[in-house]
């Protein structure tokens, strides 16, 4: 028996139809979207537009053209952070962020941008009240993960979005862990920029992601890449409009064809149905882990709003060893270490070793959870015997 519990890195398996959609694109369409007027290029363009429209519907963006596709959430975050912030600007983030936010911010810090980090509790909870006092005259942006990829905890983006709007500060949300898994409404949550991953809870292939940009704000972002877009070809100046401004070069149309199939699966199944099943799986996993002697759990308490991600450790054994044993002896695939988010581990007190992360997905079963729990119980017993 093998059990894949690494859906926070990338969802697997993908839904029925995803692979077929990519194969069909490759076999029957195959052309470059937006580059020529022939039938196959038009068909490729339709494929991309359908995925845009489905994404827009999912996040309640009124206009599909506000979505630019990127290769991943990291690229989308870089477009916002490197494109928006100038020396003398101030930016606020949390101490739970992934390196996709932290690394661009540290780079910007070396270029004269001021960075403030709102502290979270040791359980990875962010009090929205802690953010307001950090806002200064030169604060340009608040950038925040919607959910931590380490603790699974959901951060109060709606409250902070409202605060940002009231204080005339732009608000960027990293929805890598939440797009498709948790309802997102860019209007209600006052989100100006939303970076998302296509290959996690949108069920697309790796190499897909994107960025929502609120109307008018594309002009606030200097593009980080210029090139061919198929539009205004006579001009040597890069387009200033969405989505072309952030889509230089031939897009990953075959990946977007797969993403479209993932988005159709999501629309037909419903975010609430998926969330309900994933909540049952993660709930059972946390409850089971809590009962195993020698397992330490991190992150928000059981019952708190979360995505299906949990971090834990086994007393007396490093997370890498536990993960290796889970894989080799029990066929359970997990991720040990820092999960590209050292700041989050500093916050929950798990540096330098990190944690063992288990992240079930919609295609896991309760049997998978029981198998993983049995395996961890056995490993915890071995660790205890070893003393």
């Amino acid at each position, binding site marked *: 028996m093998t059990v894949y519990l690494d859906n926070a890195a990338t969802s697997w398996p993908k839904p029925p139809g995803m692979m077929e959609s990519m194969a069909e694109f490759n076999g029957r369409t195959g052309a470059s979207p937006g580059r020529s007027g*022939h039938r196959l290029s038009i068909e490729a*363009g*339709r494929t991309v537009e359908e995925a845009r*429209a489905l994404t827009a519907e999912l996040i309640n963006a009124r*206009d599909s053209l506000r979505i630019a596709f990127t290769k991943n959430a990291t690229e989308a975050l870089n477009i916002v952070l490197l494109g928006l912030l100038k020396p003398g600007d101030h930016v606020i983030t949390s101490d739970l962020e992934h390196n996709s936010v932290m690394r661009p911010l540290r780079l910007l810090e070396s270029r004269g941008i001021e960075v403030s980090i709102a502290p979270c509790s040791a359980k990875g909870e962010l009090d929205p009240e802690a953010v307001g006092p950090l806002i200064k005259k030169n604060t340009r942006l608040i950038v925040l993960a919607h959910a931590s990829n380490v603790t699974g905890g959901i951060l109060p983006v709606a409250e902070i979005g409202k605060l940002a709007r009231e204080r005339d500060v732009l608000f960027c949300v990293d929805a890598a862990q939440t797009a498709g898994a948790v309802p997102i409404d860019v209007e209600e949550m006052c989100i100006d920029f939303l970076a998302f991953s296509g290959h996690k809870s949108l069920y697309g292939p790796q190499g897909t992601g994107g960025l929502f940009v609120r109307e008018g704000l594309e002009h606030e972002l200097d593009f980080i890449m210029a090139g061919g877009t198929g539009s205004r070809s006579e001009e040597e100046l890069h387009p200033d409009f969405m989505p072309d401004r952030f889509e230089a070069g031939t897009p990953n149309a075959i990946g977007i064809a797969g993403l479209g199939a993932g988005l159709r699966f999501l629309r037909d199944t419903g975010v609430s149905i998926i969330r309900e099943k994933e909540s049952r799986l993660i709930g059972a996993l946390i409850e089971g882990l809590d009962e195993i002697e020698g397992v330490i759990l991190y992150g928000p308490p059981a019952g708190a709003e979360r995505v299906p991600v949990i971090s834990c450790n086994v007393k007396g054994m490093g997370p890498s060893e536990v993960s290796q044993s889970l894989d080799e002896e029990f066929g359970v695939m997990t991720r040990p270490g820092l999960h590209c988010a050292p700041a989050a581990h500093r916050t929950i007190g798990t540096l330098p070793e990190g944690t063992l992360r288990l992240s079930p997905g919609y295609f896991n079963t309760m049997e998978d959870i029981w198998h993983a729990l049995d395996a961890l119980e056995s490993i915890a017993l071995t660790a205890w015997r070893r003393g």
Partner: protein
Amino acid sequence: MIGPHEYMVAIFKSVSHAMKAERILKERCVPFKLIPVPKHISSDCGVCIRFAADARPDVETALIGEVDIALIRPLV
């Protein structure tokens, strides 16, 4: 003066815009055809929407507020 059965074209900023326009016009059952942008109109490598002159009000009603039209003009 253009006759009611002669063709007009709507040109967009990019193919992404044209694709969105196509989706909306299909949803609203407005008759049109997607064609390559004629070279005498623009040097863009994209596509545009061709429609009969008497369908112009339907095209405009469907697209205004949904997608920016760069230009509407007779095909010839």
